[in-house]
């Protein structure tokens, strides 16, 4: 009974969110937030991958922005410089980023904990340096502009209104795929790895392979997000993929609740709103706030802000119900 009610509740919440998200670009008051919502969608895609990697599998990545950047730059270079169809460019970018993750996956997952964190940080830095220095391809520190829009047949995604639906189509697809992965055999294996690698190994889980697979998946997500990013903004520069960008992705995952797929929307949303709407005028203050959030959330609710809020909500609801049942 309880579980059925629980699922009923979550359907109501999802339905409400869906209605809101569909209405958002139509409403004249809300439509000014369409661009913000596009960015939230893009960053949600990256964050979901990071949640799978960090929250479910327990592997830190301080270089996730590198995958985001590889996807973005491959898409930008292929579609602008070489005139490749943007959809094909996006596909090639995703495959190449995935392949890159696969190649670095095996050596890098010989490392654990602190060393893994520092190695991913290092990889992120190298990619950032390459984006900046390979100016022949990437336009250097100034970046590239004039990247074409995505289009289907004659239908060009040349307004924010259209791109909003495009991005959220991808975002929801990624969320649903991830949800299914988490609830499947694979998801249980990942959680087992998080719990104890030795124990997982002993019951026949190929720990290394699962870790690499999830890294590849998260890299492909990040790459797709990167492609959407460049075809939305039509501009790309290295600053979007520096160390701070990777840290901000971690902030999103942490706020969302590391081990929560849907929390990613919450994490990406809260962070983007904080950055774009509230703290934009205060310069460096957003970093200060993010630092504070990371420390506080990790000390007081290591399972993540969203997960904790959900728990509190559940408890309140139970208390309310119990009071109602009693005569």
């Amino acid at each position: 009974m309880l579980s059925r009610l629980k699922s009923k509740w979550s359907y109501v919440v999802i339905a409400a969110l869906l209605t809101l998200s569909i209405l958002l670009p139509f409403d004249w008051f809300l439509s000014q937030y369409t661009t913000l919502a596009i960015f939230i969608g893009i960053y949600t895609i990256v964050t979901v991958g990071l949640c799978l990697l960090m929250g479910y599998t327990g592997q830190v990545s301080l270089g996730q922005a590198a995958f985001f950047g590889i996807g973005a730059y491959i898409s930008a270079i292929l579609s602008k410089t070489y005139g490749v169809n943007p959809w094909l460019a996006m596909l090639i970018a995703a495959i190449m980023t995935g392949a890159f993750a696969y190649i670095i996956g095996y050596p890098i997952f010989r490392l654990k904990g602190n060393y893994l964190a520092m190695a991913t940080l290092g990889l992120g830095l190298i990619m950032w340096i390459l984006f900046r220095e390979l100016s022949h391809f990437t336009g250097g520190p100034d970046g590239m502009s004039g990247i074409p829009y995505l289009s289907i047949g004659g239908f060009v995604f040349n307004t924010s209104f259209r791109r909003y639906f495009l991005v959220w189509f991808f975002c929801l697809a990624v969320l649903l795929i991830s949800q299914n992965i988490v609830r499947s055999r694979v998801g249980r294996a990942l959680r087992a790895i998080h719990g104890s690698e030795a124990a997982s190994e002993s019951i026949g889980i190929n720990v290394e392979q699962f870790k690499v697979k999830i890294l590849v998946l998260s890299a492909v997500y990040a790459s797709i997000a990167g492609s959407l990013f460049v075809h939305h903004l039509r501009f790309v520069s290295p600053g979007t993929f520096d160390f701070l960008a990777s840290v901000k992705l971690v902030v999103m995952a942490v706020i969302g609740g590391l081990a929560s797929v849907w929390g990613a929307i919450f994490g990406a949303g809260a962070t983007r709103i904080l950055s774009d709407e509230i703290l934009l005028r205060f310069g460096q203050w957003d970093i200060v706030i993010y630092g504070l959030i990371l420390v506080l959330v990790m000390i007081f609710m290591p399972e993540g802000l969203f997960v904790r809020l959900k728990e509190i909500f559940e408890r309140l609801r139970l208390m309310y119900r119990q009071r109602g049942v009693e005569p």
Partner: protein
Amino acid sequence: MSTAQFVQYLVSGVTQGSIYALIGLGFTMIYAVTKIINFAQGEFVMLGGMLSFTLAHSAGLPLAPALIISVIVAALVGAAMYIFAIRPAKSASVVSLIIITIGAAIFIRGLAGVLWGVDSVRPPFFTGSRSISFLGAYIHPQALWIIGTTVVVTIILHLFLAYTMVGKALKACAINPVASSLVGINPRTMALIAFVLAAAVGGIGGVVMAPLTLTSYNVGVMLGLKGFVAAAIGGFKSPLVAVFGGLLLGVVESLAVAANWGPFTSAYKDAIAVIVLLLILLIRSGRLAEEEMTG
């Protein structure tokens, strides 16, 4: 490359490497006592440099007190970081602790950006800027200050760990925290001391480095990474090997840039440290993994 040029690059490598060595010392100390990699280690160097600029240049304090106050403030920030961010997270997982120290790092960096702005600054030189000629190379007096300070700090730290009561307690705590708490050594106090010492050493590095290399609110990440490389060469165990590792990295960087072969122009200088880092981590990965499990 002529001898003079070689010496020139060597000296500049040793100078840079000295800074990495000091940061590596900080990493090693905190890791030995607490098993935490402090990702905010580079921020203490940034703080030392920025504070010394404000005090000595903007506030017009005499140099010596300005430097001492800068180092003390950096040490206090280290203490505050331990008390407010690390200690409350008592039994947090490795992942949580990494995120906490990163959070502390960008918090400090962000505040520095707010306080000092984003421009690079140069605090005054300690003893002017008239270069000294040595084997055909020109050595900046500030470089001598950097190298000299590193030598002195390393020796003092070594003596401190080997011959004082607190130093021995720190060592005991690093070897076995449970056993040392049985004989009355409080691991939390030791952890606090380790953080203060690491922050002070980082602050000293920042203070001596800033006049020569300039400093800004965001130098912490790269310096932290390079200090980490130094400490990783020492396996996070030996402070002396960490110092050696720092010097080695500095020289490798400098000579790689000097050789100018292939893609290794100065634009890629920072990438060299990352490559060295990845190589060390992968070569040592077997042993590191074991330590991570048993430690």
